[in-house]
């Protein structure tokens, strides 16, 4: 049974509806959860940078090994060396935050440029760019990164540059497809006929008016992927090394105690990863639905 109700009376100016009536509540829920997570990550990042932490994340407390949550003073408990999990989670954000931003901005910048070139110019340039994106897409991301790790033993910023490069094809293809779609609707011809400058058409009419939603969802999805990759790498032992905290190596080092039934030390960072990536993904999808005006009929 589905219920439809006309709430706005007989005649009304619908543009003045409050925001919670204008959009689907699911999308608003997604976006508010996502914004909450982003804000939490940002604030925690600041706190970590300023070392405003409940405890020193590397301070060992042999009296409090693997304390459960809410035990005296340690409200997220301690790990196998008695280190405060809450402080380590906050410090773990340092491991992926800036590198992740780097990866996302490389993907977006290069992807937008390649996408515009191939979508707007077409022809031979399009063929070459399609070849390049296909080439990048041929490498499984993690395998390519392991190759780079083997060759250079680079630090996380270089790894994230590679990650950014592997994210280029998705952005470039999406932008090029969008431009092709707009061209199909004679949108671009109309803009040229109106005498607009190429730069204005590309920057304002294509990128800003039509690709905004797409770029936002790519950025949030990219950030989610960057977090997953950084944690995976530090889990595999190629990223941040113990005793410096990263969510990935926290899961890994806690895992030794996991099978004995001490779930918490590796579950806490795993949940942090889950909630954070979920937040970025939901933010992207919710914003996309709202900006793309997918509000039903």
């Amino acid at each position, binding site marked *: 049974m589905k219920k439809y109700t006309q709430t706005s009376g007989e005649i009304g100016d619908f543009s003045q509806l409050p925001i919670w009536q204008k959009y689907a509540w699911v999308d608003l829920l997604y976006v508010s959860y996502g914004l909450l997570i982003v804000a939490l990550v940002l604030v925690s990042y600041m706190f970590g940078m300023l070392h405003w932490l409940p405890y020193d994340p590397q301070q060992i407390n042999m009296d409090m090994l693997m304390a459960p949550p809410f035990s005296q003073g340690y409200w997220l408990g301690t790990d196998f060396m008695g280190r405060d999990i809450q402080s380590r989670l906050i410090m773990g954000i340092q491991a992926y935050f800036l590198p992740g931003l780097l990866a996302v901005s490389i993907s977006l910048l290069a992807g937008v440029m390649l996408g515009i070139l191939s979508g707007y110019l077409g022809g031979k340039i399009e063929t070459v760019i399609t070849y390049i994106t296909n080439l990048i897409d041929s490498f499984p991301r993690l*395998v390519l990164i392991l190759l780079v790790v083997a060759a250079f033993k680079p630090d996380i910023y270089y790894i994230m540059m590679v990650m950014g490069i592997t994210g280029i094809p998705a952005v470039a293809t999406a932008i090029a497809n969008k431009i092709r779609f707009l061209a199909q609707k004679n949108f671009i011809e109309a803009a040229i006929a109106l005498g607009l400058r190429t730069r204005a058409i590309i920057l304002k009419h294509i990128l800003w008016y039509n690709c905004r939603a797409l770029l936002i969802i790519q950025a949030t999805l990219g950030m989610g992927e960057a977090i997953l990759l950084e944690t995976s790498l530090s889990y*595999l032992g190629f990223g941040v090394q113990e005793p410096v905290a990263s969510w990935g190596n926290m*899961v890994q080092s806690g895992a030794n105690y996991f099978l004995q039934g001490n779930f918490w030390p590796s579950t806490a960072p795993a949940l942090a*990863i889950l909630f954070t990536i979920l937040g970025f993904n939901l933010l992207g999808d919710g914003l996309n639905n709202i900006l793309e005006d997918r509000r039903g009929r």
Partner: protein
Amino acid sequence: MTSIPLRAIAYTLIKELMLTFLLLLGVSFIIFAILYAAPGDQFNILLEGQLPTEAARAGIRDAMGVAQSWYGQYFSWLLGVLSGNFGTSVRTGLPVAGELINVSLNTLYLTLGSMVVTLLFAIPVALYSCVRGHVVAVGWSLTMLGYIISALPVFWLGYIAIYISIHVFGIFPLVSMGNPSQSNAWLSTLVPILVLGLGSGTLSEVIRSLREELSRVMAEDYVRTARAKGASVWRHAFKEGMLIPVTEIIAAKIPFILGGAVIVEQIFNWPGMGRMAWQAAQDRDFSVIMGITLVAATFVRLGSLLQRIICTAVNPHQANE
């Protein structure tokens, strides 16, 4: 009955084979460039590894005059690779090629199995939420489940799976530690496949893309025609709404699943490419990691080739354009 359009398939096959060849050439060049740029003359070590005897290795740099220039080095390495000579592993001292076949078959088993798991989960959910999408509560909770499973780190999911299978089902799912004489040995291989299939982070994307494609096709004019003439909607929507999207998403997700395999193989001690790549990255074993990257890229390209051919077989008109 519609016959299989052989000419269109042959045309696509030739075109796509050429493209695949060009792309793999590009892949090999990028691998070469990375190793060439690596510090410590790594590429020459790699070239030496391709030679059978110590004596031949000693004289390589003088013997191969062309190998001094970078393109000479590239081509002599590429010729070796093409004839199946991937060099020798630093770690084991054995030729890489033979071992590569073993591990890639293991990885193929893992990844194909996990794709089946992903599809077995994703197709019913996509179908259900497309057909019964208006039952808000059900559609929403299925979508949410997909989101959550996709955001779960696969390495943690792996430990949960191990814990559950040991304590609830009494299976010890660590492959190389498992006793092969056990009757339920295949059962223990099922656990990593399940974990990779559900947790590789592709599930929610697969669900979403299948659902969107299906809803789009269900709104097409020709599906309306099928309903208007009283024919089966599924018969008409199947090719464009299910077959093509499924092959497309599988082909697009092969790299992600191979990446996920690196982690899952690490957790479950699965003797596959991913574990070998991890070991090689630890040891800086160039012949091995190079071989694995090449094989993985070949898998990706072959998947995409297969997808193009299926597409052509289904809709021969597109190929002629």
